[in-house]
């Protein structure tokens, strides 16, 4: 009889838990209550999200997490990182394990509309490329018929490569690993002729090979990979915060606001800069934050150009040119809607 009671109690508890799962939408309140942003990142991709020997994360995607934390707490370090494989990332966000996914994730229609998620912008315009050993004497992806190709599972990559080979009537063998470390190791060991992923990723992963100099990236870009932060659907306020955290960095670059001159610009006389930095108008209130939200972002991580150059730019080991990630005013695609 006692045991039966226990079963009943357990049942009621289960019911209660099951019943409450449907609620919980106000991510900002949750984040404020716990005091940090839980951010989903990769398991290690230099330039985007990569931990150093002491466990300090850096990279463009990491800076986006820090920007959001700075906007909320005035402190870019109020972030905890959850390393996720490509396969785990969406489930982690859907289930509420993380508040924000910033993990070189391509914005596609099905991901945006069928997973209960929203993409809050594009912090890096990328495209898929191929890397191959220089010694193979291959200069175009069209010479790759019959090749073995290593990549990550659960990515747009494996679908694009399928499309590309099909469209060009070529054959290939796909060897798809769950973790990037194994992709790199298998490619390095000669299991595959080709390593394919986002081109930025190729430059990043090439650094992990035994002899990076013996590998080259082929010129073809076979897809559009707009990489950006992702949030859960149904929480517009949180969506806005993440969206505008990125826009703030782009607008700051355009307005010439840098980590070094933030305070100066806030006190200066450019009205657009003053609106962004909160010395004019009440824009912070619209996203539930203090008025110096954007000033805090720039103080913590700098403007978009600074973020780019620090993490992946020409002076870093990745050495990537701004290319299409330049500001719209300089022939690129980064364009921030005005603060008005």
């Amino acid at each position, binding site marked *: *009889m006692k*045991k*039966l009671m*226990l*079963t*009943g109690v357990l*049942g009621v508890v*289960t*019911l209660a838990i*099951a*019943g409450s*799962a*449907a609620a919980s939408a106000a991510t900002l309140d949750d984040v404020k209550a716990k005091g940090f942003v839980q951010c989903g990142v990769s398991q290690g991709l230099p330039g985007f999200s990569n931990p150093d020997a002491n466990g300090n994360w850096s990279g463009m995607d990491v800076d986006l997490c820090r920007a959001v934390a700075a906007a909320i707490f005035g402190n870019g370090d109020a972030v905890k990182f959850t390393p996720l494989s*490509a*396969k785990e990332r*969406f*489930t982690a966000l*859907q289930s509420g394990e993380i508040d924000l996914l910033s993990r070189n994730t391509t914005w596609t229609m*099905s*991901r945006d*509309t*069928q*997973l*209960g998620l929203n993409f809050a912008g594009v912090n890096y315009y990328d495209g898929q490329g191929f890397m191959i050993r220089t010694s193979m004497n291959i200069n175009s992806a069209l010479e*790759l*018929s*019959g*090749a*073995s190709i*290593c990549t990550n*599972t*659960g*990515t747009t990559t*494996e*679908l694009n*490569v*399928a*499309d590309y080979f*099909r469209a060009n009537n070529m054959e*290939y*063998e*796909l*060897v*798809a*690993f*769950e*973790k990037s470390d*194994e992709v790199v*190791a*298998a490619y390095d*060991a*000669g*299991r595959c*002729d080709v390593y394919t992923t986002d081109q930025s990723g190729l430059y990043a992963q090439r650094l992990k090979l035994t002899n990076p100099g013996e590998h080259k990236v082929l010129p073809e870009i076979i897809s559009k990979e707009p990489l950006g932060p992702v949030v*859960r*659907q*149904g929480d517009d306020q949180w969506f806005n915060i993440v969206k505008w955290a990125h826009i703030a960095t782009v607008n700051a670059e355009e307005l010439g606001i840098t980590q070094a001159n933030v305070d100066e610009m806030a006190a200066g006389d450019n009205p657009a800069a003053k609106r962004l930095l909160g010395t004019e108008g009440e824009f912070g209130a619209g996203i539930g934050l203090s008025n110096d939200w954007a000033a805090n972002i720039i103080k913590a991580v700098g403007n978009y150009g600074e973020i780019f150059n620090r993490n992946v730019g020409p002076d870093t080991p990745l050495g990537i040119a701004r290319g299409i990630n330049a500001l719209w005013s300089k022939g690129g695609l980064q364009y921030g809607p005005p603060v008005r």
Partner: protein
Amino acid sequence: MAVTDVTPNGPGSAHDDSAPKVALLNNPEIRGWLFQVVLAVVVAYLAYSGWKNMNANLQAAGIASGWAFLNNNAGFAISQSLIEYNQASSTYGRVYLVGLINTLVVAVIGVILATIIGFLIGVARLSKNWMVSRLAAVYVESLRNIPLLLQIFIWYFGVLRLLPQPRDGLDFGFFGLLNNRGYFAPKPVWGDGAIYTLYAFIAACVIAWGIGRWARARQMATGQIFPAFWVGFAVIVLLPVIVFLAAGAPLTWDVPVAGGFRPKGGMTIIPEYIAMLVALSTYTATYIAEIVRAGILAVSKGQTEAAHALGLRSGPTLRLVIIPQALRIIIPPLTNQYLNLTKNSSLAVAIAYPELTSVFAGTALNQTGQAVEIISLTMLTYLTISLLTSAFMNWYNSRVALVER
């Protein structure tokens, strides 16, 4: 547990004929049933409301659900498929089948290999030869104490490093090619009339079985021994060969040829499969070896002595006296190892072997986002495989179990 606890067996239960008449609700048997029904209803309600709640949550979160995705095009390639699979037109349902078959192919062959290695090592550990028993002990102690995932990586990257690049791969002529893209074996292409060879093989098996039965019956009746094993073996080999030749040897070979990125033609055994198979079978074999050793040691020495006293030589003693008794002890834990091996095959996701967890609960899940459906189907599949394995092993166990007379 609660269910069994409330079944009546105490004083005044149904077995007690002299029990006085009591109110219906106080009748222990009826009350027992009542509790069970209530419990069943509660469990069913919990399951139902959990299900409903989950669906509501999925819908509220805007996450797609339902099984329609199984008919959608998958659009990605799979490196090993024993059934027709075309990345352009095959569906997610087909991906499931390909993954399932790849799981079974590594699990079944793995179980067979692990059993063979395990029995050999287990017997070797009991050997009177110091060197042999020490080596077997070292094998068991080292392999079973290193995490399996690590062993899989060691085998995989070991295999990859060991094998040459395709351009300077090994060429065995008719017997195929070996390089780090895999082993490219000649593929049999059966012609017209080849099916009769298969019929002949089946017929030969039946005949061999019949001979065995007859020989045993005769030995029981007359004591005369007939070499049933060798005769049966000869029938199984010769009959299909004769039929095959009579049909005009309808078999050609598709031999792989080197060239380009990788050899063309033939059939391929990919390095991921080899690494997975070796890792799973050598690892599980250590446990099987210990089970076998324990089983043999558990048969009392008196049995051997009694058999010797009756004039049986060592071979027949082992075969007819020791092993049948040891098997009774070996089979139940052996079943566990078979189940473990099958479930461990899901570690293959780490080295790109395309089994069920990797292609279906991995790639397909990520492309469709339908976690609930895909994970439930995957769990159900492993459960089914495990239950079928246990059912088979239980049946076998009941055959070898001690029949008390």
